[in-house]
């Protein structure tokens, strides 16, 4: 069950330009957290910024009760977060949302991460490897130095391929090129993706073309984070004859089956 706790900062580490890895002591959250879920963080004690900030769970160490986050500083909230030091406490609600549906053990899965969207996929990959899934993580970024993971020296317990828009590392082009090569070649049983809207849209059309199921983790501006305010909706195919329906990213998501999402 989700809780709201004052979580202590165990470690704050800068791992790239504007990119941080934060470890929080939050055993009440790590206990039940699954990949694809997120936490909702109060970055300040005052009213500026007013709202909490949603950040995906990047990993957990259940033994130590530690929760890992990987985040990019893009504005006020994330900048405040990056200023938090070991020993400080942050209001953290979680685990929130519906995580990824796990595939049958042994199935081959591809994870597609665009930019910071890779954060929840690393957690997912780790769980999948433990379940004996064959995992390949594709990471896309604008350029080598903006890669959130997958840089030289980065070790992961799964296969990893990189694409950069400027060709400074790995494939020169969008990360979806790598996905297409896999789908056209050895194929995949399941694709999980998280990243910018354009990347997800392109991934959705590849999945449709190659008839592979997929799940996407979405981002939307949030109010409550718990399903109460209906702020964070995304457009999905409707149930029971309805042409479309707005669903809440914070509780019905952030992970949605790819085929339910409506792009426009």
């Amino acid at each position, binding site marked *: 069950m989700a809780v709201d706790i004052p979580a202590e900062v165990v470690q704050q580490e800068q791992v790239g330009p504007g990119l941080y890895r934060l470890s929080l002591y939050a055993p009440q959250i790590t206990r039940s957290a699954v990949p694809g879920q997120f936490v909702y963080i109060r970055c300040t004690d005052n009213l500026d910024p007013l709202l909490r900030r949603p950040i995906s769970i990047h990993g957990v160490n259940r033994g130590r009760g530690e929760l890992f986050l990987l985040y990019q500083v893009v504005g006020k909230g994330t900048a405040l977060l990056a200023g938090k030091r070991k020993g400080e406490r942050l209001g953290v609600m979680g685990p929130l949302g519906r995580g990824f549906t796990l595939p049958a053990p042994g199935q081959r899965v591809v994870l597609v991460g665009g930019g910071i969207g890779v954060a929840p996929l690393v957690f997912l990959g780790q769980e999948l490897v433990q379940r004996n899934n064959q995992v390949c993580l594709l990471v896309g970024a604008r350029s080598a130095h903006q890669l959130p993971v997958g840089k030289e020296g980065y070790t992961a317990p799964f296969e990893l391929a990189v694409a950069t828009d400027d060709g400074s590392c790995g494939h020169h082009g969008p990360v979806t090129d790598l996905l297409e090569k896999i789908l056209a070649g050895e194929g995949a049983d399941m694709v999980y993706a998280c990243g910018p809207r354009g990347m997800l849209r392109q991934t959705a059309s590849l999945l449709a073309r190659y008839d592979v199921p997929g799940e996407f983790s979405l981002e939307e501006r949030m109010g409550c984070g*718990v399903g109460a305010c209906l702020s964070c909706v995304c457009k999905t195919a409707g149930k029971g004859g309805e042409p479309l329906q707005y669903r809440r990213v914070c509780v019905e998501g952030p992970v949605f089956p790819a085929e339910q999402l409506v792009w426009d």
Partner: protein
Amino acid sequence: MIKPNLAVDVAGIRMKNPVTTASGTFGFGSEYAPFVDLNRLGAIVVKGTTLLPRRGNPPPRIVETPAGILNAIGLQNPGVDHFIEVALPYLRQFDLPVIVNIAGDTVEDYAALAARLDGVPGVAGLEVNISCPNVKKGGLAFGADPDSAAAVVRAVKGATRLPVVVKLSPNVTSIVRLAEAVVEAGADALSMINTLLGMAIDIRRRRPALANVMGGLSGPAIRPVAVRAVWQVYQALKVPIVGMGGIVTAEDALEFIMAGATAVAVGTANFINPRATTDIIEGIERFLVEEGVSDIQELIGAAHMS
């Protein structure tokens, strides 16, 4: 010192303390149940309910502004029948008056909703949201025109025996005139304020930040406007008031009570602190003890004295 009395009565709705939730910010209660003990709330006001389910507006529906948020949810809700069949049974397990916020496009919608909810066990009262666009009257809000507001209230009162709280919009030249009209039409209590009409622009995209262009401003930013509205209406009329708008702390809640509110509702603050309601209840109690006040009633409208 003996525990001070926090219980209040809003037009027959008996609340164990003056703190309730602002419609639309607390869902149907279940969403916040993991974080806060619903039994401790004075009452709950649920999300705005309409006759038929509503899909709501396209996203983005929310944007943060200084000490506030703009929202344009567009009344997405599963409809009154779903409320009665699913949400209400859940809430009935708690010792908690349930106030149903209702909204419609026409006077008839409001009357039909009031009739539908009349006599439904577990409903303690209605909050009539008259700040929604009135389709029949060409986009003018009911809440902006004293005559149409009064018409809605008369229709609702005619269709139910439940206590009727009428929720006023601050987007008017005189909230007192509006209050007078709806009280004259039979409102048992008033709640105020709904959101201020506002908007924000995404300068990179050169477009309104909300898909709906305009939205409602809530949060601490609007508190001074809300306290002023409560003060003015308390001064003009003798009717119980549920005050809201930017309440984050017990001190904020006490401003409304001293301005004349019998009860207060906590809205946007739930998003910041899911225990905002109970923290506020505790804070009010602490204040009463500190100041040697034995009954919250002594503070209602206290800033008008002397």
